[in-house]
């Protein structure tokens, strides 16, 4: 009897537990299976882009509203961006609807695998299928090997991943394609049915793999693209209601590829550009908004003369060269500044507030920013600032004193780590501003000059001499 009672309690406890867990994870992983998965890994630059197409089927009984993605912990640390979309319509009328992606915790994930959940627009009913497109971007995921190379050597890197897609679901069929920048591939791990054709390596198709299958692979290949990494970028956007938007960008640039060792010979670099410095880079391209004016490019010790600006109606291309070519491990700092017409970026919202609509990321093409700080300097007298950014950033407020400020300007500071060009989307900063404040500084100047002249008039009419000279 006693034993039976305790058994009954155990059953109740178990059922409660399972019920709770069902509440927490409304979609049990076992309810879904992936019919077909195709993964394309693009290794052509130093930013690794992975396109994942998943065809998901609900094999359970209850509707499912979330689909989970799993990543090994090493990749999560380097994950810069994760986007998902669902395909709607068939064939020619196919379109993509973006979906929300959030990190979640899975307690039963092996080896600390991290997961993200994609929230579907409409819950997936039992027996239905859906096609998801996932894009994720990894930075700092190519490890140079050898880690140090001389001037003439080309740069070889390792890429590590799994031949089988890591997933909390059972996968019926899957294929992985890896694209390398050139046909020079030193080695790659062979897992059963691995093919290499030109610059593409194909893993698969693999059939009927259980959840959390993993098969590590390593690809060793040549990648001489510019490993341009901005270690720190501070963008300062200064709003002036007199009609100008002044942007100042402070860069700390580094070549994050294989470290340069030994000599640097200018003869070799200049006479044989392909042999003498193939892993280095010199040209950078900054995409600036149209109608840009007063562009400058300098560093702490003055102007850097090697830059070109091309403008048209859609964009402005600023081609810049650092003072010296960057080899692996070399660094350079510089500042780009430019002005923009305010009416292109400042708008009034329906509730009477003003908002600045500006791009978030780094204007340099094909670069990773390790730490990006965007500072929006609002005019003196602005109140209630609030920023709307399409992804998570750290925010805080600062005060800055600029020309003739008394109260100081409110600065909205947005910080984000691991920024890739795909982060170049718009963000908004809302604030209220009374135009009367625009007159404060001119009035201050006018009154100062007025008092100076009054004082000099007074001085000329007063006799300061202590005793009258005869």
């Amino acid at each position: 009897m006693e034993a039976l009672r305790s058994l009954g309690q155990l059953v109740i406890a178990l059922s409660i537990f399972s019920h709770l867990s069902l509440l927490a994870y409304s979609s049990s992983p076992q309810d879904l299976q992936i019919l077909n998965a195709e993964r394309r890994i693009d290794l052509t630059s130093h930013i690794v882009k992975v396109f994942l197409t998943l065809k998901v089927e609900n094999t359970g009984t209850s509707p499912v509203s979330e689909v989970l993605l799993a990543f090994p912990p090493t990749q999560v640390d380097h994950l810069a961006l994760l986007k998902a979309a669902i395909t709607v319509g068939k064939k020619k009328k196919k379109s993509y609807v973006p979906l929300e992606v959030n990190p979640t915790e899975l307690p039963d994930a092996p080896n600390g695998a991290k997961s993200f959940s994609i929230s579907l627009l409409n819950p997936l009913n039992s027996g239905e299928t859906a096609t998801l497109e996932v894009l994720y971007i990894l930075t700092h995921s190519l490890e140079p090997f050898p880690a140090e190379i001389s001037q003439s050597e080309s740069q070889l890197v390792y890429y590590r991943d799994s031949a089988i897609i890591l997933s909390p679901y059972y996968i019926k069929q899957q294929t992985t394609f890896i694209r390398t920048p050139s046909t020079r591939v030193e080695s790659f791990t062979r897992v059963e049915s691995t093919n290499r054709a030109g610059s593409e390596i194909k893993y698969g198709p693999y059939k009927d793999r259980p959840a959390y299958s993993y098969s590590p692979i390593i690809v060793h290949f040549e990648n001489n693209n510019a490993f341009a990494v901005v270690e720190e970028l501070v963008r300062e956007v200064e709003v002036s209601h007199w009609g100008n938007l002044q942007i100042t960008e402070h860069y700390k640039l580094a070549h994050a590829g294989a470290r340069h060792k030994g000599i640097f010979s200018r003869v070799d670099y200049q006479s044989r550009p392909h042999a003498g410095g193939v892993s280095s880079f010199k040209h950078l391209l900054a995409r600036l908004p149209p109608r840009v004016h007063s562009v400058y490019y300098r560093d702490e010790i003055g102007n850097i003369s090697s830059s070109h600006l091309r403008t048209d109606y859609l964009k402005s291309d600023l081609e810049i060269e650092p003072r010296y070519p960057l080899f692996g491990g070399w660094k350079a700092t510089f500042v780009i500044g430019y002005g923009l017409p305010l009416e292109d970026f400042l708008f009034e919202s329906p509730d009477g507030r003003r908002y600045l609509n500006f791009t978030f990321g780094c204007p340099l093409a094909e670069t990773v920013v390790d730490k990006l700080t965007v500072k929006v300097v609002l005019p003196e007298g602005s109140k209630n600032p609030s920023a709307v950014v399409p992804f998570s950033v750290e925010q805080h407020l600062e005060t800055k004193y600029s020309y003739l400020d008394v109260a100081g300007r409110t600065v909205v500071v947005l910080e984000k780590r691991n920024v890739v060009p795909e982060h170049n989307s718009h963000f908004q900063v809302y604030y209220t501003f009374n135009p009367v404040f625009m007159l404060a500084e001119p009035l201050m100047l006018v009154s100062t000059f007025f008092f100076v002249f009054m004082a000099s008039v007074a001085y000329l009419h007063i006799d300061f001499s202590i005793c009258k000279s005869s």
Partner: protein
Amino acid sequence: MAASQTSNGTTLRHAFGNVLSFFILILIGVLAFSIRLFSVIKYESVIHEFDPYFNYRVTQFLTKNGIYDFWNWFDDRTWYPLGRVIGGTVYPGLTLTAGSLWWFLNSLNIPLSVETICVFTAPIFSAFTSWATYLLTREVKGAGAGLTAAALIAMVPSYISRSVAGSYDNEAVVLGTLLAALVPVVGFNAVMTSEHFASFLVFIIIHVVAFVYYIKGILSPKMFKVAVTLVVSIGLLVCLAVVAVLVALVASSPTKGWSGRSLSLLDPTYASKYIPIIASVSEHQPPTWPSYFMDINVLAFLVPAGIIACFSPLSDASSFVILYIVTSVYFSGVMVRLMLVLAPAACILSGIALSEAFDIFTRSIKFQLPGLPGPPQVDAGETSSESTIPQNEVPKTKTDKSADTLKERPSRKNRKKEKEPVEKPSIKSQIEKRLLVLPFEGSVLAIFLLVLLGAFYVVHCVWAAAEAYSAPSIVLTSQSHDGLHVFDDFREAYAWLSHNTEVDDKVASWWDYGYQTTAMANRTVIVDNNTWNNTHIATVGTAMSSPEKAAWEIFNSLDVKYVLVVFGGLVGYPSDDINKFLWMVRIGGGVFPHIKEPDYLRDGQYRIDNQATPTMLNSLMYKLCYYRFVDTDGKGFDRVRRTEIGKKYFKLTHFEEVFTTHHWMVRLYKLKPPKNRIRGKTKKSKAKSSSTSSAKKSGTKRNPWH
């Protein structure tokens, strides 16, 4: 004629003249400021040349760390391993001025960078200088001469060359802030050099005289006499004691406290005989005749006329000006850089000459046009000319003069005293001047020629400011068929050093590049442009003149990690290290006699082609400059020396090339780490080292770093 006017009209005209001269002065200030901005417009807002970089770095330190840290600043990033006490050896006038300007603007929330302030300090002070010149010349010969002199000094090329925007140096502001730079806060080092004694003495005497006059004013004559005897007797005792101490201190140094530079002022051959380090600086050479024409232009012809004008009549002020010009002409003849001292004197005297000449000519014209009222006629005649200098001053001079002769000044209390004694002689001179009437046509022609001369001066000055003196010398440009070509190699190398080497690495180069390396690359240097330690510089010179192995040992003993050489052979940049190399040999040989100049010369000729001596071809400087140079064109043709180099193919064993700039103007080498002595080589190397040391012993003095 002027006497017929009512006193009311004269007052009005007088007030008008004052306002006019005030606005002319403001315009002269604007002119002085803006003519120096060619460098910013043509190049960029950047610090120029060598010494300004040191001043800029000091100012940065001052603004960052405050005055007390600045005063106690021991700089360990230069003169390694000796260091330099910056706070005690720098002239703080300039840096304090710029630093307080920066502080003032920043406290008003005007966030200008220290660099901007430093770049524009010189033009601002040039405006002050022209106003100071106005005040000085006005005391000598009246406001008209003052304005002319101010306009002349605002654009005299000699001064422009030292004060274009970016020339952040003492010389640029010294004329404006003469006292601030000399005030005895310079620290003990500067006080102990004798050349400053004279200026201190003058400074003290001025104050004593002013003080005595003040005391005299407030005491009764009898009390004053008592006070004088008391003060003089005590003062003399104190002075004697102080002088005795100073004399003892100064006399204990071998050159009696005079630095070599000042000694070479008294004896122009001193430096070239005894101190090659001073003679090696190009601006310490005596100037050539063309440089006089370049730097003061037509003023050279106007100065004698100005001297004559100063003698009639001779006053205290005009005799001071004459003394000033005579001494400054002598000093400018000794050193090129002292042309700067000549410039203000020449401007003052030329201003006097021009203004007197216009005075005489316009008066002659006026007297020969009896029917017409004078001044408007003269005005019309003047404004038709296009030169800006004489245009406005002449009517001003006249109004001033007539005002002086006729009526006492109503309001200007400080000038009253001086003007009153002038009144009588000027009436007399009025009568005299009536006799000095020149022929009408001659006067018109002379005025026309003078205006032409002034116009020529203006054109020359603008050309000098825009073309000759605007280059910042760290950026070079050349005009080629496909447009402007920029050579920014110096900053390329400095930026590379600052970003790609360790913070505490030591960089050895010839001393010319010391200031720039510390300021732009922020790396420790062995020697810099403050050439205070001849032995240290000689050590670097010796290393550069030695063969590779010996040089490596010297540099290694100094913890040097990188060696920087400037090489112009690829693009034809003449002031490179190969052209300075003989000075390194001379300075090095002056201290370490195993370096002998004749070893580097073939029959007394300095050459780097296949006739060059083996010592030359094996010296470190030759090797570092021409390493792999032959690979550029296959022949190794040096565009500066216009010859093929002597030794084309060689390898470096103790140094490796780590960076060379785009146009090869700066080359950086790294010292290779010492080789491990393995595989029984110890014996051999020992024998070798003993032989080298015996070779060194043959010299009278050994390398102290070995």
